[in-house]
């Protein structure tokens, strides 16, 4: 088990290393010098003077060979920003202004507004993390009982209505549900139409935005989370219900289920301890991957509900051609997925003894 763990972790590190190379090649100087322009002049912008371009080139180290640049890049990510990075981030810029903050991160400094990429991501991560965790809780709580019941009562009215709902949930994008929910649960009750209809406004849900989680009063946080997490969860719940239903259908036909019943295990025990325990195995893998992907940014949900999460930042970064921020987000997303993958593999080995040997 220990060897297995070490092997998984080493693989993860290797994968991350390859990803840093790919992001470096994609976003680094190799591809940036386009249409006869040097990387520095592309980054600097169309109206840069020659001196300014030369300064940018030296400042970003673009005049050095690519492997040296990659080495600096990797070193900053792994070891942390060097003293030189720190000094430079706080030094006086040519136009006479100072950097807005002296926070230098491992991931560099954004082109737009000159902030530490680490700080931007840190700020966005809380929102995305809240959204992911809340949505995951909701979709698990919804899909496990529904999926199991649907499988046990295959062909019943309940099962068939569930399957229709699943089809809807999977087919309709999150912004469809999101906008409907925002209109009917947030906008309409708090608009003039409500006054016309019932003579009163209600502020049932906010129209968007995020409130930080506070242990003393988690309500504002929860209040802002209900609609986005709910809408995001519905889509995943649909997928999980379908998966769990088909898993349960096949597992409940297994010989060991018959053995459990022949032993005299009560129905509930047969379903939960013997059936569900086995049916959940492939869902663990799926769940880990989904969490990883969502931490890398739930773009549509975040934009629909105006949440400043990773996904929102990613869209902004790409729109602004903010290379350090984009590559930073890619790295964080990759880190999330690789970490979740390792966790899933380890957890899976605990859940399924057959994996441990192979």
């Amino acid at each position, binding site marked *: 088990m220990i060897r297995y763990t070490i092997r998984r972790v080493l693989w993860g590190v290797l994968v991350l290393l390859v990803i840093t190379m790919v992001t470096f090649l994609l976003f680094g100087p190799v591809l940036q010098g386009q249409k006869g322009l040097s990387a520095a002049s592309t980054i600097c912008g169309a109206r840069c003077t020659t001196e300014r371009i030369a300064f940018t080139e030296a400042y970003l180290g673009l005049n050095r060979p690519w492997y040296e640049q990659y080495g600096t890049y990797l070193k900053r990510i792994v070891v942390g920003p060097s003293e030189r990075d720190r000094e430079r981030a706080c030094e006086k810029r040519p136009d006479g202004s100072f950097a807005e903050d002296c926070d230098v991160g491992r991931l560099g400094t954004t082109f737009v507004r000159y902030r530490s990429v680490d700080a931007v991501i840190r700020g966005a991560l809380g929102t995305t993390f809240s959204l992911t965790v809340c949505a995951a809780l909701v979709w698990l709580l919804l899909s496990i009982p529904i999926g199991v019941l649907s499988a046990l009562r295959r062909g019943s009215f309940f099962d068939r209505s569930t399957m229709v709902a699943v089809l809807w949930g999977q087919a309709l994008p999150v912004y469809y549900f999101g906008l409907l929910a925002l209109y009917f649960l947030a906008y309409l009750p708090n608009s003039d139409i409500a006054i016309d209809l019932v003579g009163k406004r209600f502020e049932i849900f906010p129209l968007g935005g995020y409130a930080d989680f506070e242990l003393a009063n988690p309500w504002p946080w929860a209040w802002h989370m209900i609609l986005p997490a709910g809408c995001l969860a519905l889509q995943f719940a649909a997928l999980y219900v379908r998966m769990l239903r088909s898993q349960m259908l096949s597992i409940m036909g*297994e*010989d*060991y289920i*018959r*053995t*459990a*019943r*022949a*032993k*005299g*295990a*009560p*129905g509930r025990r047969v379903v939960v301890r*013997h059936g569900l*325990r*086995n049916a959940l*195995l492939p869902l663990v893998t799926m769940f880990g991957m989904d969490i990883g992907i969502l931490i890398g940014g739930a773009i549509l949900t975040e934009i629909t509900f105006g949440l400043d999460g990773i996904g929102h930042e990613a869209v902004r970064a790409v729109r602004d051609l903010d290379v350090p921020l984009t590559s930073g987000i890619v790295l964080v997303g990759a880190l999330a997925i690789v970490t979740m993958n390792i966790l899933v593999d380890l957890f899976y080995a605990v*859940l*399924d*003894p*057959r994996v441990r*040997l192979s």
Partner: protein
Amino acid sequence: MALLEVRDLRTTFRTDDGLVTAIDGVSFSLEKGQVLGIVGESGSGKSVTSLSIMGLLPRGSAATSGQVLLDGRDLLTLGEEEMRKIRGQEIAMIFQDPMTSLNPVYTVGWQLIEAVRLHQDVSQTAATKRARDMLAAVGIPNPDERLRQYPHEFSGGMRQRVMIAMALANDPKLLIADEPTTALDVTTQAQILELIRRLRTDFDSAIVMITHDLGVVAEICDDVLVMYGGRVAEQGGVDDIFARPRHPYTWGLMGSMPSRSHGMDRLQSIPGSPPSLLRPPPGCRFSPRCPYVMDICRGDPPPPLRQVEDDPHFHVEACHLDAASKREEAARLLAAQEIVR
């Protein structure tokens, strides 16, 4: 009073294509310590008989009628919770494929302890001790270590031993073994049969042995029930059936057994395949494959079960062929075949 008395058991499945009568009027009785063999091809209703007795058929699509009396109590009238208490405690069952019959995610010990604690109000320690003792009783070396292992760490034969240990954990009165040796290789088969024979005396439970192998029947059974197409073809004591087989289907089964006198000849087989129970042939269900078929065989009603005249013991068969021809044919078959006993 017999330990188990099954009267006119009839099980019907509702399928998309219509009603299927999987077993049609099966009756037998079994005394304490006795072994009854139920023999027949796939689809003859052997397994459905055992699942009907256990009450393990899906309640929605299967309907069972008749009586299953265990110590005089009719199991078919019991509710699910009462039946649950009987399963595993009074009637236990082992299945055909030991490779898939144990839950892969729990240790063998966990599953044995579960079997004990489902029916006995004992501590974890006591249940563990019982599980350990059961593993030792079925001949598994290092039981303490084996308890902590998972099913995939056991071979097929060892897993079947675990299944037997689990079935016997609560000293059931009746053990139903549904083709317990079919999925095993020949040497393991012999070991498992030997084990069942030994445990039968140690634990003193009655056994219903479901098999398609007459060799297994000859080996450990007291009584035999030959089933074909969901109906009883021939039924009686094992010695009587082997000495005086009276149903053409029984002859067919015996003819397809390897024997010493046949040497390297090809095995005989019964031509054709088992009937569709959705639309069974009218009259005797064996008639389409029977070499002795007569006109009367193809008309309703099917031949009734009749006592074999020249047999002093209980021995019944369902065939229209006259007694004299049957004696003749059986004698010829037995002369040609030296059945491995």
